[in-house]
């Protein structure tokens, strides 16, 4: 049971977890797409890019043509949009600066040096291609995850990091799967997506169904042990919330987020793998909604309003 920490720091940790995961997963998806676009001589790059923007929830003007360059500038290199890869990393860094005292110095150094290297990596990418930049992002995210695992105590601070990471993971896995639904002919094939999720080998070991879409979807949504499966992440999130709950709180103050996560977990647990494909859109919407709702509930319950807003003066006669 936790003792409680400053809301401001807890919120910063939660967002570090979310943003680093976002950078990593977005890099994986964008990489898969860019390869697909490059490799397919008959495809429609504009439509493919549009579907990518749609999946990542970034608005794009319906009238202007969209190309690989737009993807790179807006989803990869943009520094101010926290849904872009670079923007997410910078946001993680900014949060880490404020929460420096509760993360390990190695975690800080990792994020700080990553931020410092972004410029050089980008220059490199203009020479040798964007894949190098994406690889850099994925490697640094993996390093950060490793340091999170090994260099701070698995205490309350750690729980917020993992909670953020898990929620983001659920959301990104849902988006990854959604790409096949939205515009299947423009998105990478199932195997490529599996690879993008880092799931290829695990899937092949676990399943004998080859590239059967149903099996792949089931794996990514319901597998108990694969870290990026939605079900696994829901479990992790649930455990975090359990650890973060105040000992002895009355049931009417049980935080809503646990209920939301618990409910989603149960729904997935009892899903029938045979009907998963047919109700996929429904399930994905449900998962994305779950993440959004849980985020708001966690914020309302643990973080409350800690924004420093200037006061207005008033005088009366």
């Amino acid at each position: 049971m936790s003792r409680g920490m400053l809301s401001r720091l807890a919120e910063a940790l939660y967002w570090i977890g979310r943003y680093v995961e976002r950078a990593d997963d977005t890099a994986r998806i964008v990489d898969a797409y860019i390869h697909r676009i490059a490799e397919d001589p008959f495809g429609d790059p504009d439509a493919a890019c549009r579907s990518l923007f749609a999946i990542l929830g970034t608005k794009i003007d319906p009238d202007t043509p969209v190309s690989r360059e737009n993807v790179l500038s807006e989803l990869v290199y943009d520094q101010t949009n926290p849904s872009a890869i670079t923007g997410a990393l910078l946001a993680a860094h900014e949060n880490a600066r404020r929460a420096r005292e509760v993360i390990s110095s190695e975690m800080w150094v990792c994020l700080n040096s990553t931020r410092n290297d972004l410029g050089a990596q980008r220059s490199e990418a203009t020479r040798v291609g964007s894949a190098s930049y994406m690889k850099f992002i994925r490697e640094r995210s993996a390093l950060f995850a490793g340091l999170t695992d090994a260099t701070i105590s698995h205490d309350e601070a750690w729980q917020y990091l993992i909670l953020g990471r898990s929620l983001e993971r659920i959301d990104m896995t849902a988006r990854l799967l959604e790409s096949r639904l939205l515009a299947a002919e423009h998105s990478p094939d199932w195997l490529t997506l599996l690879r993008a999720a880092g799931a290829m080998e695990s899937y092949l070991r676990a399943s004998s169904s080859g590239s059967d879409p149903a099996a792949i979807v089931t794996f990514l949504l319901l597998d108990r042990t694969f870290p990026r499966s939605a079900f696994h992440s829901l479990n992790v999130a649930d455990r975090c919330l359990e650890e973060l709950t105040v000992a002895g709180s009355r049931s009417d103050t049980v935080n809503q987020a646990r209920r939301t996560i618990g409910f989603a977990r149960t729904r997935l647990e009892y899903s029938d793998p045979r009907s998963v494909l047919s109700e996929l859109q429904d399930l994905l919407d449900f998962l994305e909604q779950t993440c959004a709702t849980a985020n708001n509930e966690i914020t309302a319950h643990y973080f409350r309003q800690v924004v420093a807003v200037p006061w207005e003066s008033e005088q009366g006669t």
Partner: protein
Amino acid sequence: MPRPVYKEIVDILVNFNAVDLRSRFDQLGRTFAERGVTFALGGEERPFPLDLIPRIITAVEWGELAAGIRQRVLALEAFLDDVYSHGKCLDDHIVPRSLVTSSPHFRREAMGIDSDNASRITVSGIDIIRDEEGKFRVLEDNVRIPSGVSYVIENRRAMTQSFGTLFSHHRVHPVDEYPARLLAALRRSAPEGVRDPTIVVLTPGVHNSAYFEHVLLARLMGVELVEGSDLLVLGNNVLMRTTHGERPVHVIYRRVDDEWLDPLHFRPDSILGVAGLVNAARAKTVTIANAIGNGVADDKLLYTYVPDLIRYYLNEEPLLHNVESFRLEDPDSLHEVIEHLEKYVVKPVDGSGGKGIVIGPQADEATLTAMRKTLLHDPRGFIAQRTVALSTVPTFVNNHLAPRHVDLRPFAINDGKDVWVLPGGLTRVALPEGALVVNSSQGGGSKDTWVLADESEIAREAEVMRTNAARLLSPPVNGAFRQYGPDPDSSGDQ
């Protein structure tokens, strides 16, 4: 000619070869940078340069200095108490009333704020110099938010790691007791009736030049480091926003200046403070350390009256003297100083960080002319002091030893019963040759300050260490013994 106490140090250092010395020096700088021991200069974080050669003070000298500091703090404490209640020293004409009432740091909001347990000057930094005759003199009092103790702690840590051999020839008083003493004073200052007070360090945040110090002290004391937005006042109770709801706060060691502390009473556009904090302090539900309104005692014009305050409140003669100073509101003093401006140091009454100081002998004609005009226009805004040939200490400059001017800021903690002075303090050294202004913002560096123990002190210290070693074996309480345990930050590099 370096004073005799430096002989052994110099001998040891002379035996290091230049390359080895340089590399240890660089390592010192790297260690500092890694640990974040920096200060902000023009928006950039720079390491605060530490000189290899410690500044040494003998036990006897220290005894006298510490007694003088204690006396001075007690007099200032009594003055503040008086001025924010009955104002007797004003009625008795010890200090002109207008000096107090026209000071921008005289906070009328603090009238009637009184604490049962707390002193007003929990932490003070009394800046000291040594004059031509080797006598210590007070250069300036700092009783609002004196900073620099983190450098004292870090300098000592760095010196023991990189130059352990230097310590083998001397018994030097440790400085690591400071956080425990501060914590104890803060606990004592909690509102009456609170058994286990929650103490916090209130920082303006990461952009503040002394942020590193706020982090270090909070960590070493084992208390939470908070920003204004983490706190909330509800009906005169101060609460801290945590993930488990709002928790009461009883003592705030604040590193935020009065001006920014409470938008209800002071600057309304401040986002660094907490609305309603002053009224909570008045209601005695929270202790603010250092107290609101201390700045009237820091005022450089009041400085010229401090010897009188010592006589008035303590019935004693001052043990430490001021640097000879002149009040420019006095027409004769004004005339003398303007006529011979090149012989004086002129300081704004309300300055900090060395800004606005004009050092007569070093200033060019244009600066002197401008200052003459300013003084005629606003004599109450300045005091003048004769230039003192500040003492120098051997300093490692460009691979050789050279004398450089130094001052000293010892830190004192007043817990309401006792004034404890940290053995040593921050020695600041003006690195450019001949330079006299030692502030970090103007090209200064620092030295580790050694107060040598005498024989009886060494024996007492050994006894204390034996007792504390025994305590180490029993469960720690509130991190108060943290400094005796293994250093969690030690990366093991040498």
